[in-house]
């Protein structure tokens, strides 16, 4: 989210975008955890996967890299002045 696109007032569009990012920030670790555990991780074994590297190693490090890239991308979107504004982040939780 760029500065230009952001509304001067924490507008609905910004709030929605930030809330989406927030949801993503909460989903990524859960999905990562599920994928790095059994039974998913058990689908891969020591057989060569990519360029002679065992499939399981490719899987673990690939997943790791993906999680890092996704989090980096999402953290950039999330890192806005409005992010910690409770009115934007938790409109349903904020005092009226």
């Amino acid at each position, binding site marked *: 989210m760029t500065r230009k696109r952001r509304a001067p007032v924490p507008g609905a569009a910004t709030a929605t975008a930030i809330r989406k990012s927030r949801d993503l920030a909460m989903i990524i*670790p859960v999905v990562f955890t599920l994928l790095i555990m059994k039974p998913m991780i*058990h689908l891969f074994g020591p057989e060569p996967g990519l360029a*002679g590297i065992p499939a399981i190693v490719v899987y673990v490090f690939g997943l*790791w890299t993906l999680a890092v890239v996704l*989090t*980096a991308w999402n953290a950039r979107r999330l*890192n806005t002045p409005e992010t*910690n504004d409770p009115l934007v982040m*938790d409109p349903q939780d904020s005092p009226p």
Partner: protein
Amino acid sequence: MLSGNLVFAVSLGYVILLFLVAFWGDKKARTGSSALFQSPLIYTLSISVYCTSWTFYGAVGSAVRSGLEFATIYIGPTIVFIGFWYLLRKLVRIGRVHRITSIADLLSSRYGKGESLAVLVTLIAVIGTTPYIALQLKAVTNSFQVISGTVVSDLAHPVFGDPDYTTAFWIAFGMAIFTIVFGTRNIDANERHHGVVAAIALEALVKLFALLAVGLFVVFSLADGPGEVFSWAPPDFLKTEDVFGPRWVSLTFLAATAVICLPRQFQVTVVENSDERHLFTASWMFPLYLMLISLFVLPIAIAGLKFLPETANPDMFVLTLPMAMNQHTLALIAFLGGFSSATSMVIVACIALSTMVSNHIVMPLALRLPWIEMKASGDIRKLLLFSRRASICLVLLLGFIYFRLSAKSDALASIGLIAFLGVAQFLPSLIGGLYWRQASAKGAFAGLAAGFMLWLYTLFFPSFEGQFVMPLSVIENGPWGITFLQPQALFGLTDMDPLVHALFWSLSINTFLFVIVSVIFDPKPLERLQGALFVDVFRTPADNESRFIRRYAASSDLFVLAQRILGTNTAYRLFSDFAKKQGVSGHLPRADDEFIGHLERELAGSVGAATARAMISQVVKGETISLDELMKIVDETQQVIDYSRQLEVKSHQLQQTARQLRDANERLKQLDLQKDDFLSQVSHELRTPMTSIRSFAQILLETPDMTVEETQRFTGIILEESMRLTRLLDEILDLARLEGEQVPWVLQRVDPEETLERAVETCHGLASQAATEIRFGDRVGDIEVKAEADRLRQVYLNLITNAIKYNTSDTPVITIRTTLEDDRYCVYIQDNGEGIRADDRERIFKKFSRGWRESKDSRSGTGLGLAISWQIMQRLQGDLELLPQIPGDGACFRVTLPFDSIKTSKAAE
């Protein structure tokens, strides 16, 4: 082999570099140009203190022994950081808002600022960390010996000689100096250790660089790419069949817990955090760091197995592999990497532990000792600094002693995970404290104490294999031979990995007691307050505290206290700033609740929440926590949440209500229009006969020469019109009564056929006058309905007279027939006139709407008859309808009434 002198010189040079960097960092921070040290990159690198020599050397060893299992230690923290939104964000916010100095301070502050909890947490932290520090000392000493060849020249047995305790001692000494110089420069948590952080960041880069260098050397110099390296791997090297079991989950969980609960991690992540936004960067950059650190672990392990003798210690592969390949520079870099990982861990751990020991053990004791009389400015500050420095020395000394005592045993090898589980005992109280208001100090204490005991019993003591506290016989057979209490198979839980076993028992009992005791013993008011402030940290500012705690103190007393801790200058600045904020002239602010709360938080940033509170309590009088207020407002946030949920529901309801209101308003407007219309029609209807009456009355008055016939005729018209007027008024009143009546009519059994015949009889005169024939068609016969006879007759009369009056046929005939249809009694009244025009059919039951344009006698209609009849039929629970026009036929009205079913059979006979 490298010469010991060279290695020593390089190490010394490196240490000097670290000192310079730290010094430079501190200086930059003091002159205000600390932008670099407050950057997210430095923050992330400082968090990398997670990777100790245990990582640097041990990960490869672990990979040799258990394949991929080593990765769990880095995957756990990865989950915590990519999931920073859940926990770290809140932790960092709380740390900043409440000026938290350590994890002990956090738990103590959350659970009512009590001292005993802080002492317990400190104790666990020290016991858990001391062996860990010893491990670092051992790693540095070993690596020093290995690289300088002081042990043996044979690479096969590099580490099994006597460790060089002298080297170890001087390493510990050097670290103590460094930590004291840069770690205890100031005591306020908010004036962060920029110098230390800078040095740690540099070390983080060095260790990553070193490990990557060794890894790249292995993959691209020893082998021709990763494919070849993995082709060297012994069969089942990765152990993919066994590694993903309970240990995989447990280790991931433990590592995730450790990156939150380890005192040094808490120090760099929460206490040293200068900007919450840095977390956004660390959330991905730290996992990236961990991933890169792990990337070459497997290749190095495989290469070590291939190129080094079987007896070589896998825990030293990172160092011995370059040495075996005669890569001396690379070996030196690897040595510096290991040195960096060990020293950075020791330095940060010492700072964290010394803060805890001095704030939670030394200070409370010192304040209680009557012979320590301190009244001078900054005296407490001096005491604190002294106790910090002493604590650092003490912790390092403990580590050294531990190393000295257990250096030959293998116990150190697993101490990393043992320490992880030790500090993992903080987790239930920490998570509970952050998300559960009911969590109480008693619960936290019970859980922590029990978890700690179980950890000692099931993991820590057994790890010494009989050499410390717990004899081997107890480990193998249980105390007094009771196998049921066997430390590594507690309560008969056998066949379990010792770590998973200890994890299961300590954390489950810990959590269980924490929850149960919290539920049974309600939190005290201050715990409740702190609980609300912590759980709702994103909604409640910390100064909310002052709303609930009523305290009185003399500003001068507070100032004396503040300057004893903060020093005169800082205290003076603090007080005059607040005075300015309050708009008070002079330098002493009003000692109101808000200021006392503010001061307590400032002091807590130096001495921890418990001590700060204890000290403030010595000065203030009449401290009361307004319980009512507290209960009211603590639940306020909850209420706000509930309220806003309700609001959401309500706003939906409101929308509906608004729509209903709009509809109602529309209806009202319509009704209002109808009312206006009605009044205007009434006016019109009344004015018409009045016009004739007035006009003829005037004529009679003003025309003296009138003939008798004319006089009679005009008088007749006046009479007729006045009767019309009366009838009109009667009907308007009748209709108004019908429409306005709320009480339902009491209906009686009526024979509608008889009523109909009487109505027809009444109309005979009018009918014969108009030469109209009234015929009866089919009849129902004997029947009873519930109705009101007079009203029903009124309807019949109205319909029949209408049929007579407005029948334009030359041979007017009215046909009346009655039937039973379904459950209804129906009366059809039909004329043979020209019917009612299509565009009038809709409104003939409305007031003043005559459906007939032509009539034989236009004078007698009021336009209300059908409206009245329709109303009557509604009140009788029946209906009055105009049937669809059949061409050639006249108008046909149908009156329907529900009939009494009891009589039906009789009627059918």
